[in-house]
């Protein structure tokens, strides 16, 4: 499924960029993320749980940065499985940062996500709604953290 969005953050582009490349901070902002770590310069690992109604799935994700132009844009792919279960998640993501003012950055992102396995029971329509509410939740938490950090630093 294709997902995308745009939001603005009251912080400089560099501050937003550094936040995006900080796995510890991202882990605290991504809904359902239990752990995230940097494995190498271009590779991250994350454990993310997704729950819809009684069905929950926990994905062991490997995120590879495929292309980046600091502090403007980043292209990545993520893929992971759910332990021994037949659930799988893959995503190709693109994110770009635009400086609107010195302390105001616009973040545009898009993602092509595929989820197979037990969460698929609910169908694409509901998955999209769930993805939308998760991304809204992320934006709220992420913006707040980066903005608070931007004020104190």
């Amino acid at each position, binding site marked *: 499924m294709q997902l995308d969005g745009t939001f603005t953050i009251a912080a400089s582009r560099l501050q937003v960029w550094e936040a995006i490349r900080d796995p510890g901070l991202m882990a605290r902002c991504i809904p359902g993320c239990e752990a995230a770590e940097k494995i190498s310069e271009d590779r991250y690992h994350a454990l993310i749980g997704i729950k819809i109604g009684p069905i929950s799935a926990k994905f062991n994700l490997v995120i590879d940065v495929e292309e980046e132009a600091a502090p403007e844009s980043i292209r990545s792919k993520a893929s992971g499985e759910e332990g021994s279960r037949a659930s799988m998640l893959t995503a190709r993501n693109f994110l770009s940062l635009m400086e609107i003012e010195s302390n105001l950055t616009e973040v545009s992102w898009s993602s092509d996500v595929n989820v197979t396995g*037990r969460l698929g029971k609910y169908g694409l329509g509901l998955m999209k709604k769930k993805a939308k509410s998760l991304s809204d939740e992320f934006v709220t938490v992420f913006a707040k953290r980066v903005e608070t950090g931007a004020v104190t630093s």
Partner: protein
Amino acid sequence: MNFVVSPKSVDEAVNFLVEHPEARPMSGGASLVAMKNARLIDASHFVSLANIDGLRGIGRVGDSLRIGGMTRHSDIATCDLLKGDLEMIRLAAGQIANSVIRNMGTMGGAIGNADPAADYLPVLACADGEVEITGPDGVRRLPVLDYVLDWYETALELGEIVTAVFLPSPKEARSVYRKLARTPGDYATASVACCAVDQGVRVAVGACGPRPLRSREAEATLAGKMHDVDAIAEFGQALRELADPLDDVRGSSQYRLQLIPRMVSAAIADVMEPV
């Protein structure tokens, strides 16, 4: 310990659920067991509520009607107490799936699962029903619309189970449940519960958002104008604006949006006395 445990009291069930966070309460098991067999869900235990006294049956309690959480759909579909403005609940129960499932599934289980396309939520929202929840902190009651938080998400916390549904005593008034489904017994593509009240109607729409759509404000505006075609069209429009339907195998969100005003006017026509 067995995978299925059968406590004898609500307290015992609640304690077990609190001590075993990966356990799940099981009422009839109509959906839960099928989901388990399909390996869609994991659980450390199923806590069967079948051997707990007092969770089954429909009766009067003061000014209210109480439907126990373990009351089966088939018992609800044939209950004489559900008449007048509560008849729609009986009609909805009779349209759930097929008779095998109606003999197995229960109201508490169906509400616990909170499938937005299932049949109870809209009729209970229309009837001003309240969900009784029992958990480690005791008993609480929530209006149906406050009980459903999001898609398949309810206000139930760890260790809490649906023990009953409370309804106002039935009044002399017509009520109806209109369900549009691809085939009899399927989940609703869209559904409408409607009952007549003095000068007006109460209406709740199902399967067009995470929870039933209901607008007391629009109901108040419509009151007294029950034979005004434009006012009814506006009312249908107001409910449509509350909708957040899914695209799924039962229909597109656009199709559902178009169904809402039509099904709402048809349901209102059903409960109106002829001029």
